[in-house]
């Protein structure tokens, strides 16, 4: 089998916020009835977290689950663990109407690290990034310049952004441009 590589192979840009491509991340799109007991069990067993509520994300170590729409979750696990996680999900949901697909290679994940990480998102997305309005534990799907993207906060200074792999380079260039020294706004300082 050929070696899997991420779109930008861990590229890093050191601006006034550090922009880093996170390499290979295991991702599963899971659709079905989010209110069912079997779904809760599937998420717990595959990711070790409780099923997230509307627009929420639950992260535990290198695993997590995010609420994407009223009938869709995004499960995150280590890249090598996707096949096992899928098997766990399929077993937990057997007999129920659902869809679980490995989308790891269709995605790119970036991390913004630094005190001004919020600024970078605020420059690119039509989202209120004021502390209080957006906080860790939330996920937001939105538009980042001309592409669809989603982001969440790992902690107060760390934001992760996920987009389609086909636009990874565009996304990286956007984030680099926004993080270029001299572009500080001090908006949320």
């Amino acid at each position: 089998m050929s070696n899997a590589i991420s779109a930008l192979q861990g590229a890093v840009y050191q601006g006034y916020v550090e922009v880093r491509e996170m390499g290979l991340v295991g991702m599963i799109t899971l659709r079905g009835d989010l209110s069912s007991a079997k779904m809760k069990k599937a998420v717990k067993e595959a990711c070790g977290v409780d099923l997230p509520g509307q627009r929420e994300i639950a992260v535990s170590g290198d695993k997590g689950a995010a609420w994407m729409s009223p009938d869709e979750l995004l499960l995150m696990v280590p890249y090598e663990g996707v096949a096992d996680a899928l098997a766990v999900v399929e077993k937990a949901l057997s007999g129920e109407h659902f869809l679980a697909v490995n989308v790891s290679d269709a995605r790119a994940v970036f991390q913004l690290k630094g005190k001004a990480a919020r600024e970078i998102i605020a420059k690119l997305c039509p989202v209120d990034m004021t502390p209080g309005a957006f906080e860790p534990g939330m996920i937001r799907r939105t538009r980042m310049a001309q592409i669809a993207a989603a982001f969440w906060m790992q902690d107060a200074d760390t934001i992760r952004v996920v987009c389609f792999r086909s636009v990874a380079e565009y996304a990286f260039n956007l984030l680099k441009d926004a993080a270029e020294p001299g572009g500080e706004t001090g908006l949320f300082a």
Partner: protein
Amino acid sequence: MLILECPYCGVKGEETEFAGGGEAHLKRFGPESSDDDFHAYLFKRENPKGVHLERWRHTNGCGKWFHAARNTVTLEVYGTYSAQTTEPPKDIKDKISAKVPGWSWREFS
């Protein structure tokens, strides 16, 4: 600029996060229908100056379709509502009536 609230994910987003999907509550006419009905279903659209009912999709978000009642002159949004309905809910109709007494749009008023 329009600010729309998606009734499915609860996001209050600006227009560019959504995509307009044309007129709401179209009645479909297919095989066996009269030529006039079929023609109207395909081509005849409302183009009001004022109250309008539309379909929108949260394209750069949760991806769901929904309905919006808004004003094409003031850009005021009276409300958004489920896609799984054939008419605007009463509370939204009441809101429109409070702002635009005597309004009508196709068979709704």
